[in-house]
Structure formats: C-alpha cells, structure tokens
C-alpha cells in the first residue's frame, strides 16, 4: 500500500444548541485551520460526509462546498455517512498514486431536527422503519444483550472530557451521546508531501466491515464486523496506547473493546469520546483526528481509531496510526 498520513486535524468547539451558523459557516473555520496546519491551499481530492436528513434539505453537501471555494472545478466526492468513511474513500483515492493530498470533512447540526427519528429513516423500509423503531430503542435492545459497566464508562468519558476544550460542558456523566452541532476536517498526504513534513500520523492500516442490517439476524452482544475490520487493519500487530472509539451509547464501548481485542493498558477515548461531543457525521472523523493528534503530540506511539454507521454498530471502520510508515 502507498503510505498515507494525517497531516492536519481541526474541529469546531462543539455546542449542544444551534448557534445560528449555517453548515458552510460551521465548516469554514475548520477548513481554514487544516489549510494553515498543512500548509496546503489546494488538494488533489476532496471528500465530505454529511446527511441530508440532518440538514432537512436535498444535496445539502453541495452548498457546503461554498466553504471551500470550488472554482476552478475540483475533484470532489461525498458520502451520505460519517466523514470517517469519506476519509476511507480519500485514502483509496490516494492509493491511485496520481494525487498526493486530500481534504476530508464532515459536519452536522443535530439540534435542527429529531435525531432519534431521523435515525429511523436509515432503517430498512420494509421491516423496521414502519414500526417507528427509533435510535434509543434499537440501542436499548443491544444494551440488553451485553453486560456492561455503563456508569463507569460514562464517568470516565466525562472526566476525560474536562480537559478537552472542544467537548460539550456537560454537568454530569451521560450514557447516551448528547445532541451536538459541529464539524471537523482532516488533511491526508502521500508521496512527496510526506517527505516535506516531519509531524505526521501514518495510517498503517485501515479497513471497514459490515454486519447484516437487521438486528435480529446477528448476535448483538458482539460485533463481528468490528473484529474483522480490526484484524484487517492490523490492530493486534502491536500494543495500542490509545483507542478513540465511536461510542454513542456507553454499552457499545464494552462490545468494541472486546471486538478490537484491546487490553486493559489501552486508554480508551482520552478526548471523552462521543459521550462528550457527538456532532453526527463528524464524530467518527474526529475519532481519527483525535487518535492522530495523540500520535503527533507524542502521547501515543500507536493509536487506534474506530467509526461506526448503521443500527446497533452494524458497520465499523478501524484505523491504526503511528509515527512510522
């Protein structure tokens, strides 16, 4: 594989309410920040992750391009998913070898609608959506399947978030990720751009795997797809100092820690994780950014990032990052 590294990461100071900024206004500062950090103003490839149902408007990602300045025309793509999956597409794009930089960003304003019911719209239209099965309900079914010390996970996440200036200022620990508005951006570099830079977090492995959609068709106490993605990404090939996991409900951390084979020595979600800030469609990308930041600031030699999509941890992406290519 062609070496690819994270060269820059930025996120908004997330809020639990609508501050009055439009989506392009929300992403503008983080795009500016990663341009400054990376020293790049143009990118070989641009890919974003967002959800029209969050914005309540079709093709909402197109208007978000106004924050980039997409003229003359740029090579651009979009996933209707968390931007972690946009980063995967950008990583694949960089494997082609003809471009050396990619801008990835994600954004979402959950405050505008009813996130629990918006998540119903992602369910299959035959068997699940007509029941009105909402996000809290299907998470509750998975929570019933796993024995988990959720209060401990919630408290540790909350305590970790006290030193994260971008997280929400929650008065007490929560076991369900809070409604959040926010955005994040990452710059990936490859080829000659790697040699020009010293502070990089290399993506040593990245993979995503998916389980059957219907919750009744799988063992909800385990995540076979997260385990398969971790194996494919090479998580077990060395010690993991830090793991940033896309935990929207506290019990999911128990499932993911087992699936990724994390030891008790791994620090999970030192940022506080999604239980401290959950800007949907950017939350997974922020996991990669936070893991990369630990590598770049030297607090972690080897870090793991995880992102998820779909009901009950259906679809899981795992990346391994370190200073070494």
């Amino acid at each position: 594989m062609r070496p690819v590294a994270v060269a820059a990461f930025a996120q908004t100071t997330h809020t639990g309410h609508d501050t009055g900024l439009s989506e392009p206004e929300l992403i503008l500062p983080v795009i500016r920040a990663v341009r400054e950090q990376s020293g790049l103003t143009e990118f070989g490839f641009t890919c974003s992750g967002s959800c029209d149902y969050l914005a309540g408007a079709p093709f909402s990602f197109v208007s978000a391009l106004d924050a980039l300045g997409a003229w003359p025309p740029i090579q651009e793509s979009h996933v209707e998913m968390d931007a972690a999956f946009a980063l995967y597409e950008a990583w694949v794009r960089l494997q082609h070898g003809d471009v050396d930089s990619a801008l990835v960003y994600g954004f979402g304003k959950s405050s505008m609608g009813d996130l629990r019911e918006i998540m119903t719209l992602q369910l299959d239209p035959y068997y699940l959506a007509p029941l009105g099965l909402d996000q809290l309900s299907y998470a509750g079914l998975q929570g019933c399947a796993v024995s988990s010390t959720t209060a401990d996970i919630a408290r540790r996440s909350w305590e970790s978030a006290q030193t994260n200036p971008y997280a929400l200022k929650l008065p007490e620990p929560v076991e369900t990720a809070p409604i959040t508005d926010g955005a994040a951006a990452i710059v990936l570099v490859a080829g000659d751009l790697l040699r020009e830079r010293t502070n990089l977090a290399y993506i040593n492995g990245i993979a995503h795997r998916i389980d059957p959609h219907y919750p009744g068709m799988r063992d909800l106490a385990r995540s076979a797809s997260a385990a398969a993605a971790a194996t494919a990404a090479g998580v077990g090939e060395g010690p993991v100092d830090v793991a940033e996991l896309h935990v929207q409900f506290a019990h999911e951390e128990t499932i993911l820690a087992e699936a990724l084979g994390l030891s008790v020595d791994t620090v999970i979600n030192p940022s506080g994780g999604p239980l401290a800030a959950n800007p949907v469609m950017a939350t997974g990308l922020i996991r990669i950014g936070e893991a990369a930041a630990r590598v770049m600031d030297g607090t972690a030699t080897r870090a793991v990032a995880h992102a998820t999509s779909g009901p009950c941890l259906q679809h899981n992406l795992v990346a391994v990052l370190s200073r070494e290519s």
Partner: protein
Amino acid sequence: MPSEPHPEINHVLEFPGGYTRSTGPVIGRFLTELRAGRIVGVRTAGRRVLVPPLEYDPATGEPVTDEFVEVGPAGTVREWTWVEEPRKNHPLDRPFAWALIRLDGADTALVHAVDAPVKAMRTGLRVWPRWRHDRVGSITDLECFVPEVTTIVANVRTEYTVTPGAALARYLDALTREVFLAGRCPSCESVYVPYRLSCPQCGSVIEEELEVGPSGTVTTFAINNLPDPRAPQVPFVSAYILLDGADTPIIALLGSVAAGEVTVGMRVRAVFEGGTVKWFAPEREA
C-alpha cells in the same frame, strides 16, 4: 460569530404520498402472508429459517431457497427494552417494550413491540401476535405481540340470608344507640367485646353486661393498598383497637388520619354513622 438570538422557522421535509417501493418476491411473499394472518420465514441453503425473510443468507451471501415455512405464531422474547414515553410514530400509544422475538420454528429474531406490563417483561417470555383486523400487507399488520395466557380471573358471587345470632344481635342493637356492649366472664373476669354468651377461655356462661369505649387504644394495624368501598381512602388503615374497659381488641377502620401517621398506642374514638361504627378517628385533645 453570531451568538445573539437568531430568527427560527419551522421547516417540514415530506415526500407527498411517500415513496413506492417494490418488495421483490421474498419480502412480498412475507407481507402477503401477513395480510392473510400468517407469519412465514424462508429457508436458506443451510436449512436455517430466516424470519423476517431476506433474499440472501446473511451468513454466506448466497441466495435463499424458494421454500417458505410457516412459523410461530408464538415466540420467545430474547433482548428487550422498555419505552416509558412512546413516540408519535410508535406502534402503541402507551408504555410498551421493544423486543427481539424468536418465533417458534425460526432461527433468527423478529423486531416488534410487546404490549405487556414492564413487570412481565423478561428474556424467555412467551408471546403471541395480536393481529390488526384490517390488514394491508405491512409489518404493522402485526399490531404487536402479547404474553401467553397464563392466568384467568375466576369470579365468585353467591347470595345468602343471614342472622347475626342472639349475642351479636344484642351487640348490633346497642351500636344503634352508639354503645359498645361487652360481657364479663363470672369466672375469669375477662371482659369481651362484642358481647357474647360464653367465655371462650373457661367456657363459663356470661350473664353480666357492661358498656365499654367508645374510646380506645391502637394495639396493632395494617396499611391496605387495595380499595375497599367502606374505607376512607387508599391506602387505608385497619387496626386492632382495645376499647377502654375491655380485655379483647376489636378490628376496625381508621379515618381522619393519614396511613403514615398511625402509631401503635395511638388513642382513638369511635365515629358512628347510620346506626353503626363508621370508623375510629384520632382522639383530639381539647
């Protein structure tokens, strides 16, 4: 950065009439059977039965066979979660459980609602479908599932003509005059109320009548949480009351006092109404 109050508008995203979606032969068969009041699964090449049916085996990605199998209608609850405040688009408008239900004969679990009290919900609960009367070929043709029948209510009612007996008749007659009539045993000197003709301890015939009460002392009591038409409220208190001058307590309701304020040793006084004792109330100090 604008942080001052900003204008807000309501915005509705709706596709008029909804999207028309093809079901394909597998999901279509399932929904057609539902409309007819049956639940079917589909058999995979590996002989497993998928409910609800999919076109492919999620374990292998291979197409399923064309063999449909009737399952259930009963099943067993596996995972479940409680909904205290249903949303407007939930199947039920009162608290209910979501559950993964393994229908009899199926190898996978169906997600649906269970209409049962939260106390009844548990992994392993047996449930049966409650069908909608007018079915259209939708997963919501199953209104929900409900627990198996494990209990019935057996009503008993029969009427009698009774007389109170000689001693009790005298006692009740005295009550109409707001008097508690007691009897003293000539042998052991125990004072019994209600008045009776013989001493239950020594068997002596009781001839001496005397009045006791109407005040007395609570010796023990119970808090009752089931409604009773004679009681002042729920919860209410029934108490043993040792009337002044008597050696045996009578049982009566307490009124004009909250259940939590009743104590053993409390002084109470009879409240008469309609020729009998309505209840006892705390004796108020003048």
